[in-house]
């Protein structure tokens, strides 16, 4: 019998309760002709993935996307199994015994390295660890960041780099109105960082940050923002490219940066210098920790396919910085028993179908979506068409009878397995109670919420 009817629903396990997991669940549960039933697993007790632990605390409006996910969670055939880790509490073979299809949406969980000397000196950190820490991610609560240096460098000009820069430059009063973790707020109160360098290896026209993001930096009440006129002037290749593409958004970005370069400092307590066409080549130690950063100046060169890439010149300089955050890209992490494509740092897949590395044919019942499928790119919403592509293939395979044949497809059997392996699992109702408690604690303090930041704390809050 083919699954997909009221009497015999298509049972799907989704691993990873970030935006992609919810978009996939929404697509699966919204099918008019197929009855699907979805169990969404996450290794943390809390849902929403990077919306909760990645998006910056001063960007509450972006976090409000969770209202869309809550609608999906309200569906009668949706269940949440939080605090249940794939490969630890439940493995691939157990899921195969309970589900027709298994979908991996675990994101990109490690930082790319700079591969330069001194990268691991005290005082040099992956930006994403700092982000997870200030957002109260249970795995990062015990991190310590030494914020006693006067000057910091943030390597990279993507969204994460901009978030970290903004958090470093905001006043404690501004941060106190957000849902930043309490311990991070206290640590940032004591921060002595007064100067931040944001470092891009390419030019202003190639910077990955958006125009609203750079404007938000420029409008920070407590910081003067500047750039070097010679670095924000368009070089010949970039000008030729803009003439050709007539890309107005990028033209505006360059204008904004040129306006910043022309600004006079107004005596605000902190300062940001946005730098372009520089790459760190070494971190140099003083007293056993980062004291200086050696930079090489780059020039731009077009590849045969037309991309302007940075090439190092023979000109070097040094920045005096005691704190470095590295943010130059991310990579997915292999999951136990799931084929991985080392070239791109993703699950080996073809448009969402997981492939057998031997014959490159789809493995029945296994799928992937989101960053662990295509790599870390796009905005939150990009994961919706990405999830839709995978779900379309799941439904096509289900209609053709190409699913797993689980001996125990009954939802109660899956729940019994979870309960046995992880008695401290969180249901959606558990999360809703936790959410109310967090919001309540926030209300008293004039904040959107005050997060629980350890699993023990979360369990205790629910009286478990």
């Amino acid at each position: 019998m083919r699954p997909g009817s009221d009497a015999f629903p298509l049972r799907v396990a989704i691993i990873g309760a970030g935006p992609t997991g919810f978009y996939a669940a929404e697509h699966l549960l919204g099918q008019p002709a197929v009855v699907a039933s979805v169990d969404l697993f996450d290794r943390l007790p809390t849902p929403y993935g990077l919306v909760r632990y990645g998006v910056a605390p001063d960007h509450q409006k972006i976090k409000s996307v969770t209202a869309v996910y809550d609608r999906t969670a309200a569906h009668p055939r949706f269940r949440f199994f939080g605090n249940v880790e794939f490969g630890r509490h439940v493995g691939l073979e157990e899921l195969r015994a309970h589900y027709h299809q298994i979908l991996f949406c675990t994101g990109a969980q490690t930082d790319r390295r700079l591969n330069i000397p001194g990268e691991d000196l005290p005082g040099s950190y992956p930006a994403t660890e700092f982000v997870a820490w200030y957002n109260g991610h249970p795995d990062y609560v015990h991190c310590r960041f030494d914020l006693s240096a006067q000057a910091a460098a943030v390597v990279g000009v993507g969204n994460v780099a901009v978030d970290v820069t903004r958090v470093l430059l905001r006043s404690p009063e501004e941060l106190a109105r957000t849902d930043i973790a309490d311990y991070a707020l206290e640590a940032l109160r004591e921060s002595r960082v007064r100067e931040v360098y944001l470092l891009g290896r390419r030019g202003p026209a190639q910077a990955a940050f958006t125009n609203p993001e750079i404007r938000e930096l420029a409008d920070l009440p407590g910081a003067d923002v500047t750039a070097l006129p010679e670095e924000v002037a368009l070089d010949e290749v970039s000008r030729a490219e803009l003439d050709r593409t007539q890309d107005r958004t990028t033209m505006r970005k360059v204008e904004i940066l040129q306006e910043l370069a022309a600004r006079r400092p107004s005596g605000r307590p902190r300062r940001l210098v946005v730098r372009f066409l520089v790459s760190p080549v070494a971190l140099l130690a003083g007293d056993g920790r980062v004291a200086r950063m050696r930079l090489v100046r780059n020039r731009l060169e077009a590849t045969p396919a037309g991309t302007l890439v940075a090439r190092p010149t023979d000109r070097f300089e040094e920045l005096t910085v005691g704190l470095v955050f590295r943010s130059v890209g991310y990579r997915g992490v292999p999951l136990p028993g799931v084929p991985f494509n080392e070239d791109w740092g993703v699950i080996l897949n073809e448009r969402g179908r997981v492939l057998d590395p031997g014959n490159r044919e789809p493995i029945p019942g296994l799928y992937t979506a989101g960053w662990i499928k295509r790599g870390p790119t796009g905005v939150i919403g990009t994961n919706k068409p990405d999830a839709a592509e995978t779900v379309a293939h799941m439904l096509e395979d289900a209609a053709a009878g190409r699913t797993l044949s689980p001996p125990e497809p009954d939802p109660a059997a899956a729940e019994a397995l979870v309960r046995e392996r992880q008695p401290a699992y969180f249901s959606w109702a558990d999360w809703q109670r936790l959410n109310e408690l967090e919001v309540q604690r926030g209300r008293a303090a004039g904040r959107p919420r005050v997060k629980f930041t350890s699993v023990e704390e979360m369990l205790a809050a629910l009286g478990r």
Partner: protein
Amino acid sequence: MISVTGIGKEGGFMNIAHVLARKGGHVFTIQPRRTVREALEALARHNVGALVVVDEENRPVGILSERDIVRAAVRDERLFDRAVEELMTRDVITGSPEDDLRAVAHTMTERRIRHLPVVAAGRLVGIVSIGDVVKAQRDEYLGEVETLQMQIGEGRV
């Protein structure tokens, strides 16, 4: 460790690596001395529009597209036994995994290239078709629209 999202572009613009990541790593190749008949069989079997022509070390030396074969067929009805290298396009523009999707889209459109072999460290690692590029760009725009609609309160919240 954990990574981060928002309205901005995270690691950077979408690039060729992101397009190849969900293509399963298939690159259909053929050697220059093979026949056009063999090439046609491969094109049909794999349902693709072009084969990368590679030497013994798997380095691209040309590309053979449906269009190359159509053009040759007009002049020579008995082209099936000819060698791939007689028909292939030799001046192949190749991409690298770091190439920006946008730049590649422009280059492919302007130079009327339908297939871009991708080379990393001298090794052929994939091929990107204009269809792949269009789809990736469409998903990128759809995602931005989705996110912006949600933020201005037009999402179905």
